[in-house]
């Protein structure tokens, strides 16, 4: 198994953007939803459209992201489903307990027991579920293309230029440097133990026993890495790391007009969500009439 960081240069608008722009824009959208707690579909939908547009503009191949999408859908269904089952007081989704017509009931039974109950699915719950999905996907799809479209060599510089310290920014770069190395070490260890007759597929016993039997895979990799660390510290000290303010040679990041455009949109989205919610009280959850009329 080789960790191939899936980055590839493509000639797209998205890749011409400054990496900082993309990170900041992503945070703007996430915070626009989560800080003022927006649940109004009239705000969610336009932002969803915006995210989806940027996602499509990144032009990543479907086969690269298929797995990611499957995961996201499972996650979303899981969350939405669980929410329906366990919903009680507190938190945003308690709004779904508002009196609202019941569409159908789902009988739930805990396997091997007699315990069970009927979960009423109301119009309000269905609409909330739709809202929830759209909102989560809007936030997720901004991050999915990043590994494919952002040069891993530029993260450190990007963080540095966003105000992080030399040391924290370089930690990021160093982590990228070691990622493929450790993936390879892990593979070699797995091969070496298999050559000694270790078969992961045949782990037997209770859960603690099975976890303990992972030790032959995990310990060599971790211990090797702690030894490597000491030498890397020497190597960095010997080249004067941390003795004064660093220069970042690849520091040629510059905002272009297109960056200001995207940043403007991101900041505007965040600010207007705050203003709408806190000044005008718009953004709360409600079931629109047209949806209600579908069922009543």
């Amino acid at each position, binding site marked *: 198994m080789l960790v191939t960081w899936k980055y590839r240069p493509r000639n797209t608008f998205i890749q011409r953007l400054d990496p900082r722009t993309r990170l900041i824009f992503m945070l703007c959208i996430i915070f626009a939803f989560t800080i003022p707690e927006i649940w109004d579909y009239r705000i969610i939908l336009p932002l969803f459209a915006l995210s989806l547009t940027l996602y499509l503009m990144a032009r990543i191949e479907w086969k690269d992201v298929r797995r990611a999408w499957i995961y996201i859908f499972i996650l979303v269904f899981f969350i939405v489903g669980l929410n329906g089952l366990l919903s009680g007081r507190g938190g945003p989704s308690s709004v779904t307990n508002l009196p609202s017509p019941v569409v159908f009931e789902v009988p739930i039974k805990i396997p091997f027991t007699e315990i069970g109950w009927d979960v009423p699915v109301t119009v309000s719950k269905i609409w909330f579920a739709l809202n929830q999905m759209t909102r989560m996907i809007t936030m997720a799809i901004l991050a999915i293309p990043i590994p494919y479209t952002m040069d891993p060599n530029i993260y450190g510089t990007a963080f540095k230029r966003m105000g992080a310290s030399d040391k924290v920014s370089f930690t990021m770069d*160093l982590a990228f440097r070691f990622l493929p190395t450790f993936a390879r*070490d892990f593979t070699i260890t797995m*091969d070496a133990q298999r*050559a000694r007759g270790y*078969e992961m597929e045949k782990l037997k016993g209770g859960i603690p026993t099975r976890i303990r039997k992972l030790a032959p895979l995990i310990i060599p990799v971790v211990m*090797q890495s702690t030894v490597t660390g000491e030498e890397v510290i020497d190597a960095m000290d010997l080249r004067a790391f941390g003795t004064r303010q660093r*220069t970042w040679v690849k520091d040629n990041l510059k905002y272009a007009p297109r960056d200001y455009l995207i940043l403007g949109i991101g900041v505007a989205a965040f600010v207007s969500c705050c203003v709408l919610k806190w000044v005008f009280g718009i953004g709360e959850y409600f079931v629109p009439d047209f949806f209600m009329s579908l069922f009543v």
Partner: protein
Amino acid sequence: MPNQPLIIENLTFKYRTRPELALENISLKVNPGELLLIAGSSGCGKTTLARCINGLIPRSYRGERSGQVLLHGREVADMQISEIAQVVGTLLQDPERQIVASNVFNEIAFGPENLGLPRAEIINRVDQAISRLNLEYLRERETFNLSGGEKQKVALAGVLTMNPSILMLDEPLASLDPASAHEALEVFRSLADEGKTVILVEHRVEDAIDARPDRLLYMEDGKIKYLGPIRDLPPEIDHTKVKLPAPWVVQRVKALDKVPAATPKPEAGERGEPLVVFENVDFRYDEEYPLVLQNVNLKIYPGDLIAVLGPNGAGKSTLVKHAIGLLKPTRGRVLVEGEDTRKMSVAQIARTLGYVFQSPTHMLYAPTVREELEFGPKNLEFDPASIPQYVNESLLTVNLKGLDEYPPLGLSFGQQKRTTIAAVLAMRSKILIMDEPTAGQDFANYTRFMKALCDTSDNAQSILTANFAATIFITHDLDLAVTYANRVLLFGDKHIIADGKPQDVLKDDQLLRKYRVRPTSLLRLNLDLLPRTGRFLPAESLAAFA
């Protein structure tokens, strides 16, 4: 003279965690433009001395230091690390662990970046280092994918950008194929010719001679035993501790009048059924990657002692991994005792074939050596009553008796390596495969265990006669092939270039050079004496004929 780059006076050092002195009373003066070779067996204090020179001692390693280390007249302990870094450039043993950036350009620029130099100046220095070492073709590459030799050169470039006047090179040749090692030595020589002081740590004196060192510093137990021109090497410098050129060894042995009897090696030949068969094997790691093996045919017979030679990245490890079923051929098949590896699990094959991986740290995990050795036999579901016997026998053969209750992770590198070999021996396989068994070991140590594993004289209770039907080792050390193998495979260009007796394969100088193997003095001497000896012998035994 203030401009003397390095003066060491009465230097003594003891690590906080060790009772004994690591360095004792070292005094030394090195001149500009001098190339100083430091040799000595493992644990004699070479790396500790290097740490005293580059300031890691007393800065990062705690202990008691006395005496003086002066860089251009200034005491190291009083200098800022950023100042030292611009005087002493250090290249560590394992370039894999010295490289801190994902990409070559960033790696070379790392030092000047830390000094906070202006961008233009940094780029200028990087360009200079790149053209100095002819690395233009690597400039845009990822460091992860570089070969060992390329990594070493990039790490050196990263050191040169600091413009140091002293270069401190701690065993820089360990994982390189002979041709790459030679190229690296040429570079070190030319840096010395340009006026830099070069300090090269290497216990294989034979190889390091290529760099034409001005003086040799020989250490034992933290003390200087000899310092002077390399030609006048006094006889007390032990040829079993450091690797000396073969003619010198012969002289010494003759002078000491202790010529050992030559031990016969069994002849390789097509005896009985082959144990492993490769039939027209092609292999690639991924559909998008090129072939690594192409049309490989090979038969391994009982009695074979095979050395596999070839350049870095040729596919030697890939080849032997097929034998144990870790990799399955893309086309063709591999048979182990007549069965296709595709139809067997690795665990099944492990009963026939034991594989010792290159680095011991990749497999050691258990709290005691004994448990480490029991791991394989238990996985293979051996009879629990017989496991202790297997374990004890293996401990005995690699000379680890007494360490059985010790944690393997707390052992020295050489002991760890022997533990991994013992762990494989305890599985009682018929064939032993070792990937670069001598890398990172000192000369005395590896001679000892290679003898134990491959020596087949009648009285030696060797492992081979006890357990193994055949042994295969991959190596960059041509002398191992000369000394211990009865069959040599030269691997290159995706297939086996030559396969035969050592004296047949290794006599073709041109072929060897083409596949980056450099003839050594031992090989030359053996070829010269072949009419009289009839077979290849270790240097000591040649004394009887020369």
